[in-house]
């Protein structure tokens, strides 16, 4: 850095105005803390947080940072489960929270959103006009973050496509400060070179996405259904059958493992069949079609091991079933375990039941700190991400917490390699860099590093993420 912290603050104030520069310790804490189970240290905090209003101000900040080689870490809403928003080299945390432009253009059949628009807000606003946001990440995450990671959350990939399929164009500010427009305003994405695709999924290391233009997708009609299974892996067999028998794929769905179900049932005093459950949103263009598709899935569930399966007509039962899944964040609390970390595994389809079985029993007879944790299995049906939540005592010291986190991440990598998975929900950078290198090899890793150097010669933007620093 060619400037001291006082100078940086002063210069940022002159660029965006005093109210939009935060240097107080409590501002800096909030832009550094993550959902990691251990606390941030003072050395993890950025020097300053800046809240630019638009791409022009972002451009000025990045030109300044590039000129003075000041690290800049982009912050959307901090919900990343892979911890890309945590500053690794102090410097500036650049928040996109003020980029709140939102416009639905039905004549062109697209909408535009500033990077800071929350997916929950966009879902609601699009829904008012009968459209659907094909990104269903948690409501507090931002459009900019989701598109940067190219995630659609829990939705079925094969039905909706990823953001890379649904984004028409982007406005991006490069680390050197230039503002570029990519993509199209017509309903066809460019054939051939389309720089939008370079930034979508680049996890923010090549530039800051400031505005997203996406197609308007008509709101599908849905019908909820449930299946109960003796063994969680039978849900994997159902998912295989769903694809093999070419039945209408669902919008999304969730599976809840045996132990997790038991905890949920006990917490809410529910009397559902013992074992695991699978809850699904069947979809169609009309309600009749959704119901027809739902009934096909109900029958398929029965054919493939479900002890019971039915359309969720009763609102109370529907609420209870989804409540069992939504209870996920409290798993472990029944044993006073408040520390937690989740992993993601996306097995290839033929091995889905095996992967489910292994995860369901992952902590049994295991040595190391993982053996001291409690694990709870859940996941998505259709998009086939399995998650396993590890709960452990919150009063473990920081070093022990870090060790268990490392063990859990190593386990995730081991399983992903074994079952030929990728990071389907959350992306790669930074903590999955070792996994990326093992899966794709050093040549692939060097390619993305060279691309980074091409766009960002001083490595100012999200420094440390591509290097795998957490």
């Amino acid at each position, binding site marked *: 850095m060619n400037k001291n912290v006082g100078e940086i603050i002063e210069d940022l104030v002159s660029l965006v105005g005093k109210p939009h520069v935060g240097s107080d*310790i409590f501002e800096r804490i909030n832009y550094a803390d993550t959902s990691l189970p251990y606390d941030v240290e003072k050395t993890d905090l950025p020097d300053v947080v800046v809240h630019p209003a638009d791409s022009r101000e972002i451009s000025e900040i990045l030109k300044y940072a590039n000129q003075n080689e000041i690290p800049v870490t982009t*912050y959307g809403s901090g919900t990343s489960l892979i911890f890309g928003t945590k500053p690794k080299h102090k410097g500036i945390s650049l928040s996109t929270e003020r980029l709140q432009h939102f416009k639905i253009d039905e004549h062109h059949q697209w909408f535009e959103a500033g990077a800071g628009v929350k997916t929950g807000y966009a879902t609601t606003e699009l829904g008012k006009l009968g459209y659907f946001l094909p990104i269903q990440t948690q*409501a507090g995450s931002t459009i900019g973050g989701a598109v940067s990671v190219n995630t659609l959350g829990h939705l079925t990939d094969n039905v909706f496509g990823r953001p890379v399929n649904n984004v028409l164009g982007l406005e991006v500010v490069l680390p050197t400060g230039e503002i570029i427009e990519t993509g199209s305003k017509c309903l066809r994405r460019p054939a051939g070179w389309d720089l939008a695709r370079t930034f979508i999924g680049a996890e923010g290391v090549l530039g800051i996405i400031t505005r997203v233009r996406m197609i308007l997708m008509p709101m599908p009609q849905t019908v909820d259904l449930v299946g109960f299974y003796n063994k969680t892996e039978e849900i994997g067999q159902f998912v295989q059958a769903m694809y093999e028998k070419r039945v209408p794929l669902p919008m999304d769905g969730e599976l809840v493992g045996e132990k997790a179900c038991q905890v949920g049932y006990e917490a809410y005093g529910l009397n559902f069949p013992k074992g695991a459950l699978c809850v699904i949103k069947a979809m169609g263009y009309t309600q009749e079609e959704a119901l027809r598709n739902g009934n096909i899935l109900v029958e398929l569930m029965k054919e493939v091991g479900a002890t019971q399966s039915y359309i969720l007509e009763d609102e109370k039962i529907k609420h209870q079933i989804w409540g069992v899944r939504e209870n996920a964040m409290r798993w472990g609390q029944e044993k006073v375990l408040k520390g937690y970390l989740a992993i993601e595994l996306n097995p290839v389809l033929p091995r889905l039941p095996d992967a489910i079985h292994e995860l369901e029993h992952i902590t049994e007879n295991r040595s190391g700190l993982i053996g001291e944790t409690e694990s709870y299995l859940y996941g998505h049906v259709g998009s086939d991400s399995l998650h396993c939540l590890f709960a452990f005592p919150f009063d473990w010291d920081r070093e022990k917490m870090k060790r268990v986190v490392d063990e859990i991440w190593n386990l995730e990598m081991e399983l992903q390699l074994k079952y030929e998975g990728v990071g389907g929900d959350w992306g790669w950078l930074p903590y999955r860099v070792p996994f990326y290198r093992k899966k794709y090899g050093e040549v692939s890793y060097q390619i993305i590093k060279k691309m980074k150097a091409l766009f960002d010669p001083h490595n100012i933007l999200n420094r440390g993420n591509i290097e795998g620093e957490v």
Partner: protein
Amino acid sequence: MEELRSETDMVQYLGKELVSCMKCHLCNTVCPVCDPRVSQGPYGMNRSIYYALKWESFNEHLRDIVYSCSTCGKCVEKCKAVSRALPLIDIIETARELLLVEKMQGPMPEQTNVLKNMHVRGNPWGYPSHERTQWAQDLDIPLTSEAHDMEVLYFVGCASSYDPQAQKIAKNLSRILKAANVKFGISKEEVCSGSEARRMGEPGLFQYLSEINSNIFDETGNKPIITGDPHSYYTFTREYPGKDHLEIYHYTQFLNTLLDKEQLKLSSRIEKRVTYHDPCYLGRRGGIFDEPRRLINRIPGIDLVEMEHHHEDSDCCGMGGGRMWMEPPEGFLPSQMISKRRVEQAIATTSEILLTACPFCNISLNDAVKDLGKEDDLKVMDITELIIMAL
């Protein structure tokens, strides 16, 4: 009397609760004051408090963050539904108490006089206490000291006693009670319920005020109490000493019972489209959602429609938690923005009248309608005003 908590108690309580946060950020998505910074929502507030305790660091910016909460409780519902069910408002109020009592960092500068006024004059604005019942002059409303056959005590609250706009609520409610032949009285000795003192982190002052009011309740024979102030309703039913022996009604509950008994009749038709704003301390925090709607729907001709956010999901007017008496510092969301957003939801329903049942909401929503220049399109009224029209 409830014992005041020691610093150790507060720190232990906060530590125990805050460690449970799994940092999902979902609370921020529903917070009315969180815009746009992550540090300003419940997530940022609780993380700030957590690290303040961990690093023994307490400063004015922490105070600004912690006092920006309107205590509307929407985050609590969210956390209960999909996360770890943290008692986020209790955490905020405990942190305020810690900052004010132990760390000399609270309240907000404008609130200092408010607390002093509550202590010295019994009301937040510092009006002379002998003017508390002036609104009732010429209305022939008996004082408790004179009303020997009193069946019900009407606890007016500070806003309806002193604020010219909110006094209308007291006057209208009194007229309605008289029309129903309810034998009620008001007390000259009434002081602030203390609810807002507690919200601002002053439990000692809350205790002092609650003792004065509790003595009035005792002296009047613990008759049923009605109030038009949801903040008083909440604190009487949830926090007052002897709360379990008090029979407390918000007027929307009480008027429904009068209508059920046909002691009150609404005979005039009012052909209006109206919408109802749930005051946070009556609805989400007080648990009363149906009675106000039932009351409104009993007015002949009324067409009640809901706003986008209603019942448990209702949005805040921005005035709770002590925000009535502070202007958030630069960089924080101004209260006017919060109330304007709520009024915009009401405008979207194409209603002619925005009804509410709280003097604070009434004041802030009225101001927002004026700020938006929508006085000709939307009137803000307390439900009592509509009932008067329907008598």
